């Protein structure tokens, strides 16, 4: 299978994480690590850009769930942006739109933080 990549960009107090490739049980720890780093740095206003994510498994979805409670308790959030149709279907089926802010593009997600 094709690889997996995590990149990060900081915009003022907001951090954007770019996921690329396949997020499954094997690659989930990479994503987990990068989220943990953000939490450790106290950068808890997070946007995850999924434009280049081809596949997400239940283990990948689990990573979001593992962090969201702590981050929200600290006053932060994880917002999802730029999901492909296929990935959106997975999130949608699972009911993520109820649990997370899912936005059309990265800018909207960043703007949403700035609003509230």
């Amino acid at each position: 299978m094709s690889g997996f990549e995590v990149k990060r960009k900081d915009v003022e107090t907001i951090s954007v994480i770019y996921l690329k490739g396949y997020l499954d049980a094997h690659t989930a720890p990479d994503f987990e690590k990068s989220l943990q780093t953000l939490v450790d740095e106290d950068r808890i206003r997070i946007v995850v850009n999924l434009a280049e994510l081809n596949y997400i498994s239940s283990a990948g979805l689990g990573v979001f769930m593992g962090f969201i409670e702590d981050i929200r308790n600290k006053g932060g959030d994880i917002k999802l942006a730029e999901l492909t149709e296929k990935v959106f279907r997975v999130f949608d089926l699972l009911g993520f739109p109820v649990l997370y802010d899912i936005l059309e593009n990265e800018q909207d997600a960043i703007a949403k933080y700035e609003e509230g």
Partner: protein
Amino acid sequence: MKIGQTSMRTWSGMILTIVFLVAAALHVTIFSLSGASGWISKSVQEILAFCALLAGIIWVNRQFCFENMGLVQKLRLLSGLVLFFWGIIKLVSGAYPLEIYYDTAAFGRSIIWLALQISLAVIVCLLLLCILKTLVFVQPGRGTSRSFMLMMIMVFTASVSSFFYTGSVEDLDFGQAFFFSGNPFQITIQIVLAFSALIIGFRCKWIHYLNKTQKLSTTGLGIGLMVLLFSLIPYVPGVAMHYSYILCYFIKNALLVFIIYGNMALLGLLLQLPSAGLMDRRTNDIRSLQQISAIIGTVYDRGDLIKKALEQALEILQADFTWIDLKEEDHYSLAACSGIETVLLKRLETQLKLLRGVIEDKDEVMLIHDIHRDRFFRHGPRPYLWGGSLLVAPIRFKHEIRGMMFAGKREPFGFVEESRGLFRAFCNQVAIAFENARLVEISIEREVYKEELRVAHQAQMRLLPQRTPELPELEVSGFCLTANDIGGDFYDYVEIGKHRLDVVIGDVSGKGAAAAFYMAELKGIIQSLAAHFKSPRAMLIQINDFLKNHMERNMFVTMLYLMFDLTRQQVLVARAGHEPAGHIQGNEVRWIEKNGIGLGLADHELFSSSLEEEKIPLVPGDRFFLYTDGLIEIRNPEGDEFGTGRLTEMLQHAGAQPVQAMNKMIRDDIGQFAAEATQQDDMTAVMIEYTGNKHHSK
């Protein structure tokens, strides 16, 4: 085949011996009848001697009669025979001085004894040649066989050529010059003979097989034997010459061969004596190492292995004490010791730690000649019974140090420099044995683990419905194909009375043991609660409450709950984050995509507020298809997913076949699609058909 060859050889040897003896007997008879006079009798006698000798020489060339004898025994036998030979010749020459030749009557009287003794001497010579051959053929080279053959031919030719000696006996010089006497032809042959014996003399490999003491004793013995043989030179011709030229010359030529070979061997022995001790030690070292690998290689238990290693170290190095420290995560701890107290080693720990550090850096065997003067131990504590010399070597496998081995003697300078090499090789053997033991342990563990997985898989498979429900108006069929030994997919049926059937399909996120536990738990919850709930939605909310409290945060369960109510002829459907159920009517497929979050993801309020339920009235012929994501996510070798599109299409064109047949078709189609690609995830599906009352009518 081999046995046949051996017996052939024995037989030919026996026949030749008989020929030889018969010829010798005839020889003696003729001699005693006709006396020494007469040209014809002389010629007949020489011809018989010729035959006997030819037979004897062929026999020697063919026979390896002392093949199975030990080297030392051979040398002993050789010495005995030489001594015997010397005795005979001495006896002959003493009993029959040369003057006897001139007294025909006296000569005639003693002729039988003379003949017997000469024959005996010839036989002894042949036996000696035979032993010589086995010595020469220790580690034979390419030309060994040829050289030996040449030498034997020369012995024979030189002996036979004496037949043509024309001069009188009195003319012979009985000194050393006798060895190269006769006409130019005879002399040439004798020189060639001496030369070939010299070549054979270089074949002394047997010397390597003697240890130091044996070399010493053989040298002494050899010198003695050489003196004896040399002393015989003037006596050999003597009376024997009158008896038979050929046999006399044969004895003489054999003597020449023995002297040349004997001297060469002595030279070889003398040259090797200075290094004999070292050679011995090397041989011993190699033998010890072989012994270690033989012993250690068969021990797979770590504890036994350490014990054996200590025993062997004491024996091989003749050490007084030894111990092994094993390394685990940069920390050394004493594994076992012998000949030394644990308490004592504990007191020396600080010094030993420094020592181990140095050895790790240098990676070589350290030899401390005197512990009390050594830089590591000079200033440390001096416990009672501590001192002498010490050898330390790392036990390393590939590039990893697994531990360290110590061996010591009570007296300073107890080890020689060569012990380093031996100890290093020894420790390498120990390291290999450790690695073997470790691998064996791992493979046993792996087997046990595999077996446990198999048991877990079996247990999990038993959690799936063991029989299909038999309701008059419903036909049900389901399957679950796991990708790993323990998967996260499950489905279940709950029959409540004759008119209600709950069908559940679910997927626990992740796989393995944790997923299996939740699966077992969910089955229990569903089976026990189903009768108390009248709607799938209420059921799912209850399950979510239960899971949310104690499930790990990054885990969740998706579930699809269908409640068939045959009294009301309806089905209630609720979906908690799961792939939607398909409602098939004829060739029309509708996915029931009601809202609902996965179980364990949201708290009670959020979960229940977003969970919807759909009520569908049942029409005979209605089918419902439930599946897990593994089914649509399976890929073909090109990497394309099966996808919902293909699934919908397949269901549309399935026709009105029974549910079992339809499930089989789905499995076949997916199998065909995936071809050789491996299944990544579990695949589960359930198909339900509402047949209405038609079964009643049947």
